[in-house]
């Protein structure tokens, strides 16, 4: 019940932030209304990076502390981060076509995001293939660490290789209404992401309980000799 109320509040807040971005913020001088996609693209990218960083911390702490909680945190944030990364790519393409004239370029950030997506999808598939929960947590934490460390390396190497992405705009060159809309949207999405994270972790905890129960021998039938 409580979580439903929170969810409704978060959706309303998200709708409000979107309204601010789509209606209240002025059109861009060069790009017109097209730029408004940044109110979903940029928050999704920020939150994806944030969640993947959280999953890195989860992996690291699991290997150090061996508490299931950290593995659940790593797993849940990886899933949600992956969904957001999957959103960033098509949203960026939608913006790139009218602005750059192409759906895709081999720019470092685009390429890195794509590779990031494949890497994390791989870890989540890997999790499905390991039955023993302790082993699953240990192996996927080790891989999670390695993958996260690889991200900046991929980024730098592709950047050396070739480059074109739009540099970040600083808040001082943007209309204050735009900055406000962007921040509102980032927080709205963050709220939703954290909500999903908490729900997913609860679900994982219950799944683990069921798994544990099923792995126990069945109870003896009534009246049986023990």
């Amino acid at each position, binding site marked *: 019940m409580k979580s439903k109320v929170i969810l409704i509040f978060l959706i309303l807040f998200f709708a409000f932030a979107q309204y601010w971005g789509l209606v209240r913020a002025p059109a861009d001088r060069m790009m017109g209304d097209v730029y408004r996609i940044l109110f979903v693209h940029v928050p999704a990218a920020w939150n994806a990076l944030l969640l993947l960083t959280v999953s890195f911390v989860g992996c690291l702490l699991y290997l150090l502390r061996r508490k299931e909680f950290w593995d659940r945190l790593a797993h849940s944030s990886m899933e949600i981060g992956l969904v957001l990364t999957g959103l960033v790519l098509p949203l960026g393409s939608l913006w790139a076509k009218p602005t750059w004239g192409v759906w895709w370029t081999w720019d470092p950030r685009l390429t890195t995001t794509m590779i990031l997506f494949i890497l994390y999808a791989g*870890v989540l598939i890997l999790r499905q293939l390991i039955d023993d929960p302790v082993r699953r947590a240990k192996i996927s934490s080790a891989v999670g660490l*390695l993958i996260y460390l690889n991200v900046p390396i*991929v980024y730098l190497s592709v950047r050396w290789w070739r480059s074109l992405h739009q540099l970040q705009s600083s808040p001082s060159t943007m209309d204050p209404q735009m900055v406000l809309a962007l921040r509102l949207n980032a927080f709205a999405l963050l709220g939703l992401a954290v909500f999903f994270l908490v729900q997913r972790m609860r679900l994982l905890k219950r799944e683990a309980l069921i798994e544990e129960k099923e792995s126990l021998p069945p109870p003896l039938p009534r009246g049986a000799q023990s």
Partner: protein
Amino acid sequence: MTLFFQQTVAILSKDFLMEYRDRSRLLSTLLFGLLLLLLFSFALSVDPALMRKMAPGLFWLTLFFASTLSLEHSFQKEREEGRWEGLLILGIDPRALFLGKLLGNLLFISLLQLFLLPLMAVLYDIQLSWTLGTVLVLGSLGLSTLGTFYSALTASLREGQFLLPLLLYPMLVPLLLASVKVTELVLARDLFGQQVAWLKLLIVFDIIFLLGSLLTAEFLIDR
């Protein structure tokens, strides 16, 4: 520490002996490499100038694909006939096991390269040089480090062999970019000395991946 190296060498020589006595895997990998070189040139172009230009990329792709066959096998073979339990009963250091396997894979990949290079020179008309050798060693060190890591990981899974390329290839991207770039520069008789920067990058990658996988190897192997 000496025990650690003794164990590493023992693993390496055991694997070497196994591969030497049953040469079918080495031979099939070499043939697969040759086949890939042919297929690439059929699929892409008959223009010699273009092939020469694409040669570095095709060489590294061929090496990646062909070595996946043997990387997969490097831990998989320990899963048969209770060998894994045997190794663990001997109380071998997981890192020594990992390092031994890594050196074995490096040796295997180097053999593959020695075989592919002359073929490449003939088929794609490129000039071989000694600088190229450095690049090849550095590139294959990175390839065998990450390859051994993921091979250790997927060998213990059911259906693991399907997962190896999916997990391994995206991790290899930086290595592929750097290796192809240096190879290109070396073949083009790099006049502006750009290759030094890329070589340094390649060395940095190797060190990072080697340390990273040695540190996490024990989580994959202790069981």
